[in-house]
């Protein structure tokens, strides 16, 4: 599902990707979004950053949203070419709760680094509950030279 809308005089690309939150399917969903973005972005480091952001977000849904069971997972992509990429990683599971943290845990912690990594690699990262939807929102500014012409 893809569409284009105009905002602030620019073309904003919007596209939705869907999968079931099984580990393999979630990783393939992240790859599908990155493959789509690779047609727009030339900078491989930026694509790798987005790959890690998406993989962490989708893996969080696998681990936590549905108590380890498969459930619906959606990535809503927004792109203003030459400017930024925005991602919403959405599930309809139990949500983050009050203890959500974006901090890097201690070195001996075996987990809890997903949101920290997503924040490190983006310019804005937040989680929210919108009706039945749990949303991780990411905004990443991308310089004009990092796009395909």
């Amino acid at each position, binding site marked *: 599902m893809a569409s284009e809308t105009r905002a602030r005089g620019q073309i904003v690309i919007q596209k939705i990707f869907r999968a079931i939150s099984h580990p393999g399917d979630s*990783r393939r969903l992240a790859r599908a979004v990155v493959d789509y973005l690779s047609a727009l972005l030339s900078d491989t480091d930026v694509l790798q950053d987005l790959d*890690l952001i998406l*993989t962490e977000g989708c893996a969080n849904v696998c681990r936590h949203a549905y108590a380890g069971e498969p459930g619906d997972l959606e990535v809503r992509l927004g792109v203003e070419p030459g400017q930024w990429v925005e991602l919403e990683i959405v599930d309809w599971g139990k949500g983050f709760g009050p203890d959500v943290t974006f901090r890097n845990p201690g070195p*001996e912690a075996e987990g809890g680094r997903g949101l920290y*990594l997503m924040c490190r690699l983006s310019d804005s990262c937040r989680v929210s509950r919108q009706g039945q939807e749990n949303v991780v929102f990411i905004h990443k500014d991308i310089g004009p030279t990092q796009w395909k012409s």
Partner: protein
Amino acid sequence: MEKLTLKRTGRSLLLKYVGEITLEITGDLKHRLDTELTDAAVRAVVVDLSGVSFMDSSGIGFLVSANTRMRSSGRSFYLYQLSPAVEKTLGLVQLLGFFAILKDECALAAVCG
């Protein structure tokens, strides 16, 4: 797991995985390593990361868990030949200084020789 190679040399175990280390694979990796570590004769584990094209926080968790298990039982755990993707991910979470990293073949030979 045809991408996984396990090689015993003396009292050392060299584990090499080629591909992506993500949530999809870390459970199997942990299981295979746990199976090898039931042999108390294994005194050191080296993980060769040269062929890892992508690693997420699940992979970090696998490495931290293995490191903790080995060191808490008086054994040694090393990383070897970090790929650029692995080095970047470990750097982002400030763990490059946490792990013992073998710098070159000489260092590897000293452990696995």
